[in-house]
C-alpha cells in the first residue's frame, strides 16, 4: 500500500502549501487539525495520528490532540501518561524521529496499549521550535512495518509548521488561561478595592470623629499624604504644599517618633507635645507607625496625631481633686478649713476662680449668712496678689500648707460678705435658692437674670458667676459663690463640674469639722457644768453652815436685844441701868447688821430665761416620764405642732411645771389611761395641753386647786399647782384648767411668743 515518493511529489507540494494556508488561518490547532490531517492523508498512509507534548515541570506527557477513528473525524485528548519509557521521551532526548516496526515486539512503554487497540506500527517525529523539541507528532498503522524513513523528508517539511502551530496554540492557551486567571484576579481585586474603599470610608469616619490627624511620610520626612484633620489638630489653616515633617509637627524635642520609626523596627512610637495656642495649653499625642513601601522596606511612616487635651485635663483635674480632698481632711479647725476651701477655689494651681464667697446655713435662725470670702477687692490688687502668690508658692501643696498656718486675713471683701444674711424663706435670693434646690446655679448675665436680686448683683458686681451648694447627707449646709471679675474668663461647664465635685468634698469636710466643733463645745459645756456643780456644792455647804450659825446666833440675839429694848422702854430711873440697856441694844443691832451681811449662799439662782423650742422641751420631759408612765399602764400620745416659734423661758422651771402636771394627771388615772401632751399655737402664745382620761374634778375642787396647801391627796403638800401657777405667772403666761367629772382634765400652759 505504500506510495512511491516520486509519484507523490507534486501532490506533496500542494499538500504542503495547503497545510501552510490552513495553519495560518487559525491559532487553534484543534480547529485546523482535521484539515491538516486530511491533507496529510493525501500524501501519507496511516490509520491514526496524534500530537504529544510533555507537561511542564512534570514527568508526564499528554496526548494533546489525537484522531481516534480512521476517518479522523473524531478528536480526543488523552490523559496524562508517564513520560518514562515512552516514544516521546526518546524523541525529547535525541531530537530524532523513531519508527516502531511492530508494537508486538517493541519495548516502548506505550506499545502494549497500542497493540491492544490493534495498532501494529508507529512513527514518531519530533516537533521543533527554534531547535527545541516541544513534542512529537505520532502516526500509527494497523499493519506492522508500515512506516519507513522515506516518509521523513515530507515530515521534515510539515513538522516545523505543525510545531509552530502547536507551540502557538499552547502559548495561546496559556495566555487564555492566565487571562482567565487575571480576569478572576481583576474581579477579586475590584471587590477587594470596593471593600477597601468602604473600610477606608469607615476608618475616615472614625478618624474624623476622633479628630485624629493622619499623614504618611517618606524616608526623608516629606509628607506624602495627609487627611483634613491633620492641620486642624495642629491649629494650621491649611497644610503647606510639599509639607515636611517640621512644618506641621513643630519639632523641638530630641526624641522624634518618626525618626525612631524609620530606624526600622516594627512597633509604635509615641510622644506627647504641649502646644500653647490662644493662651491655652493643648496636649497632642503623636504615634508613628513604620510601614513597608513597594520594595518591602520600612521606608514609610504613618503618623497619627490626636488632641488629648481633654483627657489630660481630666487626669489633671482628678489628681487635683484628690490633692484638695486630702488637704481638706487635714484640719478639723472650722475657720482654717473654710479658709482652705476658699483658697482652693481661687488658687491658680487649683480651681482658679478670681474670687470665692462662702455662705453657711444657720438652721436655728433659719438663715443663710455670709461667712467668708477670698479674693482681691480690685483689678490692681488682683494683679499684685497673683504675681505675689505665684512667686511665693510654686506648688499647690505649699500654698495649702501656708494657708493652714496663716491666720485668716480680714480683707474688705471678707467684711462685706459677713454683713450678708438672708432668711431661708427668701427664695428669690439666688443663694437661698441654691440651698433649697441643692443644685448649682450658673448666671451668665447677672443684669438680666431673674434669679439675681439687685442687692446681690450690686454686692457681687460681676456679670457672670456660679453658685454651688455644699450638700451633705441630702441637705445643703452652705453655698460657694465663685466668679472671675478680673480675668473675665468665662465660666465653662467644666469649671462648674469641677467646682461641684470639690463642693461635695468641702461639704463633707465642713460637716466633719462642725461635728467635731459641737463635740468640743459639748465637752466644754460638760466641764463648765461640772465645775459649776462643784462650786455650788461647796457654796451650798458653806451657805448652810453660815446660815445655820447666823440663825443660831440671831435667835438669842433677838431675845437679848429685845429685852434690852424692853428695859430701855421702861425708862429706868437708875442711870447705870439705862446706859447698860442702851449699850446692849446698840451692840445687838451691830451684831445683827453683821449677820445680815453674811451672804445667803443657799438662795436659789434667779430664773434663767433662754430661747427654747417648746417641742424639744416637751420631748425631753416626755422622755423622762416614759418609764414612769409605762409602769402605771398609761399610754402616752405626743401631738406636737411642727414649726412653732421659739419662746423665751427657764427650761428647768417649765420642766418642773410639766412634770408636776404630768404627775397630777397620772395620779388621777389610778386604773391606767391615756395621757396626751399637745403643743399648738394660740395667737401670741404657745399652748401646751396635758390631758388625762382620769376621774376629772368636781367644780368645787377646781375652785380651790390653786390655793396653797389644798390637796385631795392623802400624801402631798398641796403646793404643786401653786408653785406651777407661780412659775407660769413669772413667765407672763397663763395656766388654765378644764375638767369633766369622770372623763378627765386638761391643764393648759400658755407661754407668750417673744420675738
Amino acid at each position: 500500500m505504500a506510495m512511491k515518493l516520486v509519484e507523490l511529489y507534486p501532490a506533496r507540494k500542494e499538500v504542503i502549501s495547503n497545510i501552510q494556508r490552513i495553519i495560518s488561518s487559525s491559532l487553534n490547532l484543534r480547529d485546523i487539525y482535521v484539515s491538516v490531517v486530511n491533507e496529510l492523508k493525501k500524501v501519507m498512509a496511516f490509520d491514526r495520528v496524534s500530537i504529544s507534548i510533555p507537561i511542564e515541570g512534570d514527568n508526564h506527557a499528554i496526548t494533546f490532540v489525537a484522531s481516534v477513528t480512521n476517518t479522523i473525524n473524531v478528536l480526543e485528548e488523552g490523559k496524562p501518561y508517564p513520560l518514562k519509557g515512552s516514544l516521546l521521551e526518546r524523541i525529547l532526548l535525541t531530537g530524532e524521529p523513531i519508527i516502531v516496526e511492530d508494537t508486538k515486539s517493541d519495548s516502548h512503554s506505550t506499545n502494549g496499549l497500542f497493540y491492544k487497540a490493534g495498532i501494529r506500527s508507529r512513527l514518531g517525529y519530533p516537533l521543533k521550535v527554534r531547535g527545541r523539541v516541544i513534542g512529537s507528532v505520532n502516526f500509527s498503522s494497523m499493519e506492522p512495518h508500515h512506516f519507513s524513513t522515506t516518509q521523513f523528508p515530507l515530515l521534515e517539511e510539515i513538522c516545523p509548521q505543525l510545531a509552530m502551530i502547536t507551540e502557538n496554540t499552547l502559548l495561546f492557551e496559556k495566555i487564555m488561561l492566565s487571562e482567565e486567571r487575571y480576569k478572576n484576579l481583576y474581579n477579586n481585586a475590584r471587590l477587594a478595592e470596593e471593600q477597601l474603599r468602604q473600610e477606608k470610608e469607615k476608618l475616615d469616619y472614625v478618624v474624623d470623629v476622633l479628630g485624629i490627624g493622619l499623614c504618611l511620610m517618606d524616608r526623608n520626612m516629606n509628607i506624602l499624604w495627609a487627611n483634613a484633620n491633620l492641620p486642624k489638630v495642629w491649629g494650621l489653616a491649611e497644610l503647606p504644599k510639599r509639607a515636611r515633617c517640621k512644618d506641621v509637627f513643630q519639632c523641638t524635642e530630641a526624641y522624634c517618633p518618626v525618626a525612631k520609626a524609620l530606624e526600622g523596627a516594627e512597633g509604635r512610637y509615641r510622644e506627647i507635645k504641649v502646644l500653647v495656642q490662644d493662651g491655652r495649653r493643648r496636649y497632642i499625642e503623636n504615634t508613628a507607625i513604620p510601614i513597608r513601601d513597594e520594595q518591602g522596606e520600612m521606608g514609610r511612616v504613618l503618623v497619627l496625631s490626636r488632641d488629648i487635651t481633654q483627657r489630660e485635663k481630666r487626669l489633671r483635674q482628678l489628681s487635683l481633686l484628690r490633692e484638695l480632698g486630702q488637704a481638706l481632711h487635714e484640719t478639723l479647725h472650722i475657720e482654717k478649713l473654710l479658709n482652705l476651701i476658699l483658697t482652693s477655689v481661687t488658687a491658680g494651681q487649683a480651681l482658679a476662680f478670681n474670687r470665692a464667697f462662702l455662705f453657711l446655713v444657720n438652721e436655728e435662725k433659719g438663715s443663710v449668712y455670709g461667712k467668708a470670702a477670698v479674693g482681691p477687692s480690685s483689678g490692681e490688687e488682683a494683679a499684685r496678689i497673683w504675681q505675689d502668690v505665684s512667686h511665693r508658692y510654686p506648688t499647690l501643696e505649699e500654698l495649702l500648707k501656708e494657708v493652714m498656718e496663716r491666720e485668716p486675713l480680714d480683707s474688705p471683701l471678707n467684711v462685706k460678705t459677713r454683713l450678708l444674711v438672708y432668711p431661708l424663706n427668701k427664695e428669690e435670693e439666688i443663694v437661698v435658692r441654691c440651698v433649697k434646690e441643692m443644685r448649682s446655679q450658673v448666671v451668665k448675665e447677672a443684669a438680666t437674670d431673674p434669679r439675681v436680686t439687685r442687692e446681690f448683683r450690686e454686692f457681687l458686681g460681676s456679670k457672670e458667676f456660679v453658685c454651688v451648694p455644699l450638700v451633705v447627707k441630702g441637705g445643703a449646709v452652705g453655698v460657694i459663690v465663685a466668679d472671675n471679675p478680673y480675668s473675665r474668663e468665662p465660666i465653662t461647664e467644666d469649671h462648674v463640674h469641677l467646682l461641684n465635685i470639690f463642693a461635695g468634698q468641702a461639704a463633707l469636710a465642713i460637716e466633719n469639722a462642725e461635728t467635731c466643733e459641737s463635740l468640743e463645745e459639748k465637752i466644754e459645756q460638760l466641764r463648765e457644768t461640772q465645775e459649776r456643780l462643784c462650786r455650788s456644792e461647796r457654796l451650798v455647804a458653806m451657805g448652810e453652815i453660815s446660815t445655820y450659825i447666823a440663825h443660831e446666833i440671831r435667835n438669842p440675839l433677838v431675845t437679848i436685844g429685845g429685852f434690852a429694848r424692853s428695859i430701855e422702854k421702861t425708862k429706868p430711873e437708875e442711870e447705870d441701868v439705862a446706859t447698860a440697856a442702851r449699850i446692849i441694844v446698840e451692840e445687838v443691832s451691830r451684831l445683827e447688821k453683821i449677820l445680815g451681811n453674811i451672804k445667803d449662799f443657799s438662795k436659789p439662782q434667779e430664773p434663767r430665761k433662754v430661747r427654747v423650742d417648746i417641742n424639744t422641751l416637751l420631748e425631753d420631759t416626755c422622755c423622762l416620764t416614759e418609764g414612769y408612765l409605762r409602769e402605771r399602764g398609761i399610754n402616752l400620745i405626743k401631738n406636737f405642732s411642727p414649726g412653732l416659734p421659739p419662746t423665751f423661758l427657764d427650761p428647768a422651771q417649765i420642766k418642773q411645771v410639766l412634770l408636776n402636771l404630768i404627775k397630777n394627771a397620772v395620779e388621777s388615772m389610778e386604773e391606767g389611761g391615756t395621757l396626751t401632751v399637745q403643743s399648738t399655737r394660740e395667737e401670741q402664745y404657745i399652748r401646751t395641753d396635758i390631758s388625762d382620761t382620769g376621774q376629772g374634778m368636781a367644780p368645787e375642787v377646781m375652785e380651790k386647786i390653786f390655793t396653797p396647801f389644798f390637796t385631795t391627796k392623802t400624801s402631798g403638800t398641796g403646793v404643786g399647782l401653786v408653785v406651777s401657777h407661780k412659775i407660769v405667772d413669772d413667765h407672763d403666761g397663763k395656766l388654765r384648767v378644764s375638767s369633766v367629772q369622770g372623763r378627765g382634765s386638761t391643764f393648759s400652759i400658755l407661754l407668750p411668743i417673744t420675738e
Partner: protein
Amino acid sequence: MTNILVVEDEKNQALLYRNELSAEGYSVSIARDGREAVTMAKLNPPDLLVLDINMPGMDGIEAMGKILGENNRIPIVINTAYSSFKDNFMTWSADAYIVKSADLTELKKAIKEILEKRKGQ
C-alpha cells in the same frame, strides 16, 4: 380683843413676843412647836399667826400647810432668822415674811397692817 398665836420654840424669845405684843394690846398665846400650833389653831382659831420656820418636831411650813388646810382664812406672818425661805415657794402663801430682829418694829407694823386689811374686807 385680837387674838395672836405666836409659834416659837425658844422660851425666852416667846416671852419677849408675849410681852411686846401684849403691850401693843393683843391677846397673845404661845405654841412651842408646829404640832401644838395646829392643835391650838384648831381649838381656838386665832386672828393672826406669827410663825417661826425652823423648829424641832413639826416645822413651820408643815404647820402652815395643816392650819391653812383647815382654815385658809387665818393670816400668817412668817418670822424667821433665815432670809432664804423668802424664795421658797412654800412661803408664798404667807401674808408677810419678816426676818427676825431684836427690833420688833417691823413685825408689829406687819401685824397691824394685815389686821387692818382684814378688817377692811
